[in-house]
């Protein structure tokens, strides 16, 4: 059929099964928005900033497992969205982001709201397109969805000049995607898999190192089975929280800079690292030359470029982690489960020595208590997002995650302002579940305009602001490594968060005791409207334990033991 480029966008999104689009209109994308006005195939959520629109699409994608879609205009619309693209690229989140562009005839003339969008997005997307003819649009959109969701997922950016959205051309979406140069390798080499299983059977102190790729591959339940069948203990990365349930006896905890002592010691003592969908990020490994120094490495990843990038893999397996784990399960009976009992005991002793905990304070609430309390009250029912900083690490440490896709946070890029819009996307994808965003007094101000989106679209996200009147994580580093020179991190001057929420039509609470917090949370869950719960917490609480930047995992700063 002969339709306009703008109509093609609607048709393609519909055929891709998109039910929610996040975005913000503007001059160059108006033809597409005109078609959005006329259709009823999908809902459009108007965020109040393009960055928030992309983060919301990320939250939607992470919670639903589908491709998230955001739509923006040219120039500043696009540049605002770049942070979201970069965030999705770092965390391998499947997105299709469609931007308007000035008409073809004006490209390169410094036209109003013109920017070389594909030039900018090239280094922070998996792939990008500048559409120069409407007849290419069906193919490009189909490729965009395919590329975003296959292999190692990631954001794909499609830049469409305004005249192309007006151009009439043939729309045929039935052609299969033909990309001779892009064929992700999904099936692991069976010989390598067999060798890996043999290595596991021969090892004395093996350790699963579980990464976010497991969640992307929808392989968490297969991995749980493999862990239980082999009896091998496991550590999770920040991105992998929820792969194993918090109460799984094989789960030691999170490793890395703010990982538990036991997890980091296990990684330092292991003789075989079994990395599944993890990428040996610097926040995980600490000093590379000391990382798992005496261990052989099995590395399963869909992205060949991740293997042996930082740590040499003795058993490299390129493939979809779900396929590989399923193949491992078939031959895993070779492994003697009872063999690793003394190793597990060693790890338990590490945990007894320095368990992950915190000290209560009689005067002020501790932020960790708040997170644990939400876990007790909402637990499995809530989807949890966070912003970036101390509250983010405490959430990863103390929230009792029980399922994959329950925890949504900006891991790789560490984007302050991610949490609230992402939580809106999560709520749009999973409206039956409570959506909670843990945030800080610094982060929340970076996308607080989303209160308006939440009120308008009835997305009752509960934002729990752990307020210590500091840009806490930077303050912590200044305290520890800059001789307490708290340069520009004192956030004593603040808005009234309760009034701020109310000004947009949300509700607000300010609490400073356990009883007040319980009451506020209960009330917020019952009321069907976006909420700010500002919790006044201890100002100088640090995230502990901690591996100082560049230090070795086994050299942790530990929580000071409390004098009795």
């Amino acid at each position, binding site marked *: 059929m002969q339709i306009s480029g703008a109509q093609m966008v609607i048709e393609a999104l519909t055929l891709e099964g998109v039910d929610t689009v996040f975005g913000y209109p503007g001059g160059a994308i108006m033809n597409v928005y005109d078609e959005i006005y006329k259709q009823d195939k999908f809902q459009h959520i108007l965020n109040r900033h393009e960055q928030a629109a992309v983060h919301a699409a990320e939250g939607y994608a992470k919670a639903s497992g589908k491709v998230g879609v955001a739509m923006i205009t040219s120039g500043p619309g696009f540049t605002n969205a770049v942070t979201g693209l970069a965030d999705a690229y770092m965390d391998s989140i499947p997105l299709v982001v469609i931007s308007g562009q000035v008409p073809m005839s004006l490209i390169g003339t410094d036209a109003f709201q013109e920017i070389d969008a594909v030039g900018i997005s090239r*280094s922070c997307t998996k792939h990008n397109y500048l559409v120069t003819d409407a007849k290419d649009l069906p193919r490009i959109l189909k490729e965009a969805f395919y590329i975003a969701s296959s292999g190692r997922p990631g954001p794909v950016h499609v830049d469409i000049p305004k005249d192309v959205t007006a151009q009439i051309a043939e729309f045929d979406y039935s052609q299969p995607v033909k990309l001779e140069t892009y064929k992700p390798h999904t099936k692991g080499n069976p010989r390598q898999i067999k060798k890996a299983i043999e290595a596991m059977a021969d090892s004395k102190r093996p350790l699963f190192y579980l990464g976010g790729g497991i969640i992307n591959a929808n392989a968490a339940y297969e991995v749980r089975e493999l862990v239980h069948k082999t009896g091998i203990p496991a550590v999770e990365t920040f991105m992998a929280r929820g792969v194993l349930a918090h109460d799984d006896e094989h789960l030691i905890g999170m490793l890395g800079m703010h990982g538990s002592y036991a997890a980091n010691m296990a990684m330092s003592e292991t003789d075989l690292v079994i990395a599944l969908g993890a990428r040996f990020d610097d926040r995980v490994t600490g000093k590379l*030359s000391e990382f798992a120094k005496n261990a052989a490495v099995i590395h399963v990843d869909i992205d060949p*470029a991740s293997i042996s*990038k930082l740590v040499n893999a003795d058993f490299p397996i390129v493939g979809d982690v779900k396929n590989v784990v399923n193949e491992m399960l078939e031959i895993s009976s070779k492994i003697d489960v009872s063999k690793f009992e003394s190793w597990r005991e060693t790890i338990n002793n590490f945990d007894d020595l320095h368990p992950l905990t915190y000290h209560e304070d009689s005067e002020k609430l501790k932020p960790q208590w708040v997170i644990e309390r939400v876990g007790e009250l909402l637990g499995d029912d809530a989807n949890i997002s966070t912003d970036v900083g101390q509250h983010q690490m405490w959430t990863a440490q103390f929230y009792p995650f029980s399922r994959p896709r329950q925890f949504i946070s900006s891991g790789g890029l560490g984007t302050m302002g991610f949490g609230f819009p992402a939580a809106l996307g999560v709520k749009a994808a999973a409206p039956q579940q409570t959506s909670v965003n843990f945030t800080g007094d610094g982060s929340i101000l970076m996308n607080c305009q989303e209160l308006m989106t939440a009120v308008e679209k009835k997305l009752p996200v509960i934002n729990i602001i752990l307020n210590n009147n500091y840009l806490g994580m930077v303050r912590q580093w200044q305290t520890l490594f800059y001789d307490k020179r708290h340069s520009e991190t004192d956030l004593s001057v603040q808005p009234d968060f309760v009034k701020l929420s109310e000004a947009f039509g949300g509700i607000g609470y300010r609490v400073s005791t356990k009883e007040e917090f319980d009451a506020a949370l209960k009330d917020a869950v019952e009321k069907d409207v976006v909420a700010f719960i500002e919790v006044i917490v201890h100002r100088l609480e640090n995230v502990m334990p901690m591996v100082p930047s560049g230090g070795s995992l086994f050299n942790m700063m530990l929580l000071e033991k409390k004098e009795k």
Partner: protein
Amino acid sequence: MTENSERRVISVIVVNEASVLSRITDLFSGRGYNITSLTVAPIPDSKYSRLTIATSGSVRVIEQITKQLHKLIPVLRVYEHADLVEKEMAMVKFPITENLSDINTLCEAYNGKIVNVGENVIIAMVADEPKRVENFLKVIKRYNPKEIVRSGAVALER
């Protein structure tokens, strides 16, 4: 942990489409890797082009470059050459007042000749291994070259 930084030649087969070259060069510049020389030309009777990139780096760096190149969507194949035949071309402009027979003899020693004669200048070309081309350019300095242009290397695996 001192890893030797050596000269390497990488060939990349890519879909011949807009922006593909910047995708590849961005990958180098974004990681702080330097490209020593770069040649691009379409492969006859196909929709692909071949790039020959001369660069330098340790084994690990080159392995990363190769993998990252391969990760780009329009890249079909990446070869990191170990055993290769490599050629490069250079053209040099000399004043006509220089000793033409000397220049001609030198060019012949480097697979070249005088290819153009004008009123005031002659143009000579040579085609040889990059190292030899470099040598040639050193030798001809005494003939006061007015302009020198090098093509960058092309390579084929033996």
